[in-house]
């Protein structure tokens, strides 16, 4: 009985989870906005601005977002799951975080939960004009969350005499997650060195096209550290294979520069210095020799 005074303390600690309130609408709004403004991809959005009513009582993947980790060197995924309320089963919204860039499973798994709220109903989500909008009721109160997604692009616009423009919320503006790792020269993962040369065999091929004009493997030219250049190989309408690095096309033992597809015969499709001739190498690339 000497410790009978500790009883209220145990009682209080036991009650703590009960005392902890559900996440409020404003908290959910802020937590998602603060994270999702950096989203670089939004996919799997099956319903656009319609209330999700089926299947009742079951969890479903509503959408997935690709997000940069702090520093921007890798990506993670946010998987958004919704349970349509059914009888006694409350509706819920759950966001799970995948620490890699793989696709979200159809139902939530054993992954860290970023946010989870119960009592969600009348949930609808839309993505228009690069703004994500979620409308729903939370504990019968209407909620609307609007999040701009400036990092999402929907293609490029090429207009004569004009600079490049992308289709995005504010063309030319992006939000980043910088830290010291972002600027670490030593850990630069982009492809190629400045000294790489096709003629020395050190240039990295970032995009390969085969004789059927199909892309073989992944196009990684966006990851070239010092830009990329195209070579003349199979005369494909969409262009030839590409290599990372400084362009020395036309020079001795370097690839011929593309001369175009409409004003010269295929045998003249490569440009070499006037004292060199374009010759096909083993990979069917025109090389100046």
């Amino acid at each position: 009985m000497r410790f009978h005074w500790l009883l209220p303390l145990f009682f209080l600690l036991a009650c703590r989870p009960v005392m902890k309130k559900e996440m409020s609408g404003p908290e959910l709004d802020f937590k998602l906005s603060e994270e999702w403004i950096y989203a670089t991809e939004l996919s799997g959005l099956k319903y656009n601005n319609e209330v999700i009513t089926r299947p009742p009582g079951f969890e479903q993947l509503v959408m997935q977002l690709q997000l940069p980790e702090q520093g921007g060197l890798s990506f993670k995924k946010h998987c958004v799951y919704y349970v349509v309320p059914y009888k006694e089963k409350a509706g819920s919204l759950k966001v799970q975080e995948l620490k890699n860039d793989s696709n979200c499973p159809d139902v939530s798994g054993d992954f860290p939960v970023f946010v989870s709220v119960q009592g969600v109903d009348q949930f609808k989500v839309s993505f228009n004009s690069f703004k994500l909008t979620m409308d729903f009721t939370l504990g019968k109160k209407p909620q609307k969350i609007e999040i701009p997604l400036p990092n999402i692009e929907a293609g490029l616009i090429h207009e004569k005499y004009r600079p490049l423009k992308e289709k995005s919320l504010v063309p030319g503006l992006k939000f980043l997650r910088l830290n010291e790792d972002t600027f670490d020269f030593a850990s630069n993962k982009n492809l190629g060195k400045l000294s790489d040369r096709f003629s020395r065999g050190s240039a990295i091929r970032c995009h390969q096209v085969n004789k059927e004009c199909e892309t073989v493997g992944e196009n990684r030219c966006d990851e070239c550290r010092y830009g990329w250049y195209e070579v003349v190989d199979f005369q494909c309408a969409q262009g030839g294979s590409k290599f990372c690095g400084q362009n020395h096309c036309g020079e001795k033992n370097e690839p011929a520069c593309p001369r175009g597809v409409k004003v010269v015969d295929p045998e003249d499709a490569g440009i070499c210095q006037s004292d060199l001739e374009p010759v096909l190498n083993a990979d069917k690339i025109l090389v100046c020799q």
Partner: protein
Amino acid sequence: MKNFKRFIVPVLVCAGILAGLGIFFYGQQKEGTNPDRFIQEKAALSRLIQNSSEIHRLWIEGEESREWGLIKAECLKHLGITEKFDESLLRCNPVLLQCHALFSKNLKYRMVGLEEFDNLPYRYLTKSNSSYRKLREVGVAMTIEDLQSKKRLDIFLEDQCQEVYLEERAYAYGEPVDIKDGDDFRFDNFNRHIYLDSHLVTNAEVNDWIRFGNDDFTRGLKEKTGNDLFLPATTLTYSQMENFCSFKGKQIMLAHFFDAATFLPMDLNEKIPKRNLRSPYYWTKKSSEYKSDCALIYSKDCLKKKPYQLNSIDPSWAGIRDSMGGVFEAFRNPIDPESNLKASSFYFDSKSSWHKLGFRAGWNGEGFDLRNFDFRGLNPFVAVDSFQVGFRCMREVMQ
């Protein structure tokens, strides 16, 4: 009395603990889930997003922004600029943001200065100095802080507004060739998205390379200040020029693409003409219409009339500035490597035969005195210790 003490002491202790824990949990709960706090946090985030749009507007508008009108005098004084320059160079230029951070008043945010770079409020970000994934463009990264909440946001402004898209069509390289002398050297850029720098690379741009590029490639280069900031960078060797362009993921201008962007097409509607007839002057289709005009070619004669500045003449049909006159311009010429220099410049008077598109001299790319150049016997009649050689970059974009 003893019993009372035995009873009251634990009760008081218990009550004290309960009250303390109650206050602690209540406070923690209030801190953690108080909706007002999140409403304020979201408002701060929204303000930062709004302010980033304003900074982006300033970035794009440059000299046409209202902010430039307000800070111009202080900015020029701070930078030590006393001579006129083409203020359109302020578009997509971090120098303007630097002045905005220093002199614009009543801002609701601040641009966070970088101690390691003399408090510059930005870094130039490229794929060569950063592994940040999925950055398609190069540009300026900066951190802004909301003054009210101290919340911060990192933003990125893409550096693409000083480029022009080269229309997909058939072009020709070099000086016009008579049919009897053989075929013209024709090429096309169909299915290719080529972007050309509209102006020569400035010293301010090279400063950013020196600050944020790999030291291995910029060793020995000194940052320029004052009036030099908006003048072309003319003291880099050819390989340094190549490396500068590579820093930005580009390549030094190819001679035949410079020709494409400067020879005026006879018929803009005809994308593949039978022959690429062309005049040696970018402003006219007629070879006979040469004019000695400083608004068309900044030649030696113009030095007496107005000081040289970048973008001193009208743009070519494709939007290329300084395609004739001014400083020399170096190219990479994959067809005739020895013809890699636009000699049309202020080193030759307006009557010089160098003032023709497609007619090029040679430069060994290593030095700047006469012996490093090949003027094909048409040497300039000037006593110059060091010729000024500018350059610009170009790139291909994938769709």
